[in-house]
């Protein structure tokens, strides 16, 4: 799951890793978050809708994907 999420994220944020967050990567804005959600949706990884606005980091995504 971890690898899959990073792979999907890299299509949108090329140097993404598990440590990447909106705080340490200035090019990660709210539009990029939605693009990541769109890409995850197509791979069948659905973040609960209520949690999308709380996404701040790759680690958040991994945690929410398991919920």
């Amino acid at each position: 799951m971890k690898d899959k999420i990073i792979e999907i994220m890299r299509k949108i944020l090329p140097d993404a890793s598990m440590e990447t967050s909106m705080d340490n990567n200035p090019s990660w804005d709210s539009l990029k978050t939605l693009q990541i959600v769109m890409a995850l949706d197509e791979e069948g990884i659905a973040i609960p809708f209520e949690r999308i606005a709380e996404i701040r980091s790759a680690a958040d995504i991994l945690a929410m994907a398991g919920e």
Partner: protein
Amino acid sequence: MTIALLSNVTVTSLAMRLNKDVREEVYSPGGYNTWLQELADPESELYSNNPEIAFIILHGTSLFGEDGAGSPEEAKAALAPMADAIGQAAANREKTVFVVSTLDIPINKIRPLVSRAFEPYASAFWREEMERRGIPLIDLGEMASAIGRKHFYNNRVWYMGSLPFSKSGEEAIAAEMARIRRAIIGARRKCLALDLDGTLWGGAIGELGVEGVHLDLTGSGSRFRDFQRRVLDLKESGVLLAIISKNNMEDAMTGIREHPAMLLKEQDFAAIRANWAPKPENLLSISKELNIGVDSFVFIDDNPVERETMQIAFPEVAVPNFPSDSAQLENFMIETARDYFLQFRSTDEDRVKTEQYRAEADRREYMSSFASLDEYLASLDMTLSIEGLSRSNISRASQLTQKTNQFNLTSIRYSEAQMKEMAADPSIKCCIGELRDRFGEYGNIALCVARLSGEPHKTASIDVFLMSCRVMGRGVESAFLSAIEQDLRDAGVSEIEALYQPTGKNEAVRDFWEKMGYLVTGRTENGGVKYALSADAAPSRTVAVRVREKKDIYRTMPCQGS
């Protein structure tokens, strides 16, 4: 080149995808649902960006209020002013091609079985309003139904950020916009080279005979007939068809001529190669025969080994992946057509292209009965008609600049919109030449654009001088140039400047200006050679071409609103 993207919803994500696909700047105005203001305001950011293409992608549901429209009439009343706004923008901004989406409007309202839904009427009305105005469409409705609405839209990001489409939806729209862009700039392939066995019919004709191959009007063999029907569509839109088959010529021709369900006829093909030579060799020989570059070909073959061989020999040939399921043949051809042969608008020349190439074969045969080339040329009875640009030939003029590679002195490409603007500029003289001979019509085959400068206009600088390679070697170029020089002289021009810009494809005309008596005056930074000729010194050139000029050849033609 700049592309603009307007919408009534958020399309920033779509704009990013398009930018990746076309590697061109994509301008999308800030602010939400500002598209109508952008269109109406002459000072808007849209117009200051001066885009060559403006895509307007509309989210159907959001065009109406929260409750939708009460009736089809109400829906039409809401859409009519928007259609007018687009129509007006398109008429006023000739340099920009507006491409507008069709409306996909899902029926959300809960209604009884017997009722009157406004949605389908609204979509049909919108399409009609755009078509009536000659506005090209990007068919969002068709994409949504092909992908399925559930997968085309994404409700989650819609509610989070007003982004209506899913990732697949955005990818499909961006890919379609990239195809439309290619069609507008004229990057269209010219020839479709097809295999026979397993492609135009099922099975090997050499083994099964005419009766044995799969091809039929109905039933399972009709999958090949349906495929042929789409190939025929392409031929009628000006694509040249060729056959490259590993077969005995006799078997191949028997199949083409005698199979009762063959939709494509022998005369639909500009060239046929059925032999045992490697296919790249045959493709090369067809490219020479038809005088078109290898990079103008799309090669279709069901055999993956043949496809790979072709791709390795000629990376510039487009080799689409043949479907493994032959029931998908027709869809495959529709997709191939969209990818490589999408056409902005058809010109008269396109429809008769194959006939013209076949007439060329008749000419070659006729030629062999003459003792000398001069005698042959004189007997062709050629007439070159020269006229200025008008609505009827502007698309062709732009097409000539886009497609002509060999006999093209400068290879400057102009879009239809640019061409229109030049035609209306009194300091730019454009003329186009149409040729016919005893075997038929070639259509418009030569184009010249000269920019005048000085007060009064003393100098003419030849910006474009090109001719279709189909009529090379007959003196047509000399006749065309002489007529232009004469007209420039009559207009008071004393000095004519010209340029040869080598491109790697126009080696054939390297000496053209020298042969025409022009003198070298210098070189440009990027390897071009500059020439000049005093208008009075223009030599008379003996040619076997009769020239007819329409009187108003250089009267500039206002093309507003066309």
